[in-house]
């Protein structure tokens, strides 16, 4: 019954005839494996957010003073950079869909550059905290701050390794306008990293 009402999760490549033109449009949205990975990662971060909120409710004074001691400039710059990196990777996917391999590789390198910049700013932020006398053992707010941001940093590094791999594969003609599932899956994973940071930034630095 459920198979009649909705397509199976494995059928993520949808071929729908357009009603007006009668032409067929292929909507490729990455592999099933990457969607499972994305949902698993999002669930993991959602649990971290809930732990943070519960700790915040039980330690209101500590957590309301916490954001004021963080380097908001670094947090804001990293938000702008990650959003820009999502723009770059979306352009890389657009380019490969149009068969513009060279342009796609250029956008992928720009995405990687944004990832390196993010890591550099995060390193500066941790150094700034250290100089101000804050570290993972300072208090519960800082423990959770380091746990969340360092975990996110590890995901950024993993995303960068994946993007480097697909960039090299694109360089060796592995992707085309008709076949680019690997590149698109890597791009979706990168967008997921941005999604999580979009929530981390207000949660840690503002609220």
């Amino acid at each position, binding site marked *: 019954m459920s198979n009649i009402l*909705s*397509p199976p999760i494995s059928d*993520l490549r*949808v071929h729908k005839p357009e009603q007006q033109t009668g032409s067929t*449009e292929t*909507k490729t*949205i990455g592999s099933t494996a990457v*969607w499972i990975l994305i*949902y698993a990662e*999002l669930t993991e971060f*959602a649990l971290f*957010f*809930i732990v943070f*909120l*519960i700790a*915040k*409710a*039980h330690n*209101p004074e500590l957590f*309301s*003073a916490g*954001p*004021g001691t963080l380097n*908001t400039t670094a*947090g*804001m710059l990293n*938000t*702008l950079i990650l*959003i*820009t990196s*999502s*723009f770059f*990777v*979306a*352009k890389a*996917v*657009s380019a490969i*869909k149009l068969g513009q391999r060279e342009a796609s590789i250029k956008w992928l390198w720009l995405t990687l550059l944004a990832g390196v910049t993010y890591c550099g700013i995060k390193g500066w932020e941790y150094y700034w905290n250290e100089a101000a006398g804050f570290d993972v053992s300072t208090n519960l707010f800082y423990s959770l701050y380091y746990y969340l941001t360092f975990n996110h940093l590890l995901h950024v590094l993993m995303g960068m390794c994946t993007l480097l791999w697909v960039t090299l594969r694109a360089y060796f003609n592995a992707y085309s306008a008709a076949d680019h599932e690997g590149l698109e899956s890597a791009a*979706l994973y990168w*967008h997921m990293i*941005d*999604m999580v940071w*979009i*929530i981390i*930034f*207000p*949660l840690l*630095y*503002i*609220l």
Partner: protein
Amino acid sequence: MLNYKNIFSSWLFMLTLTLISATFAESSDPSKMAILFICIVTIIKGNLLIDNLMALRHSLHRIRWMMLAYFYILLPIIMLTIIFPETTRQLTTL
């Protein structure tokens, strides 16, 4: 299919929303209206990312809604737990 105009305008809009949100970081204890505003801004940013940058607007509805639900469920939870800390404390005290 990705729409190039949408990608660019979404990127610019998301950058603008981030800069607006950052101005609230100056306040050590944001008001309830500020918390509501920041949560709505975050939901809008998530929506733009999912629909235009990830290009899920015209994709399989189930996938799109599962992604959107992350923002539509999590952000109200964040907002309510921050606005009503006493209730959160009572609910999470063993």
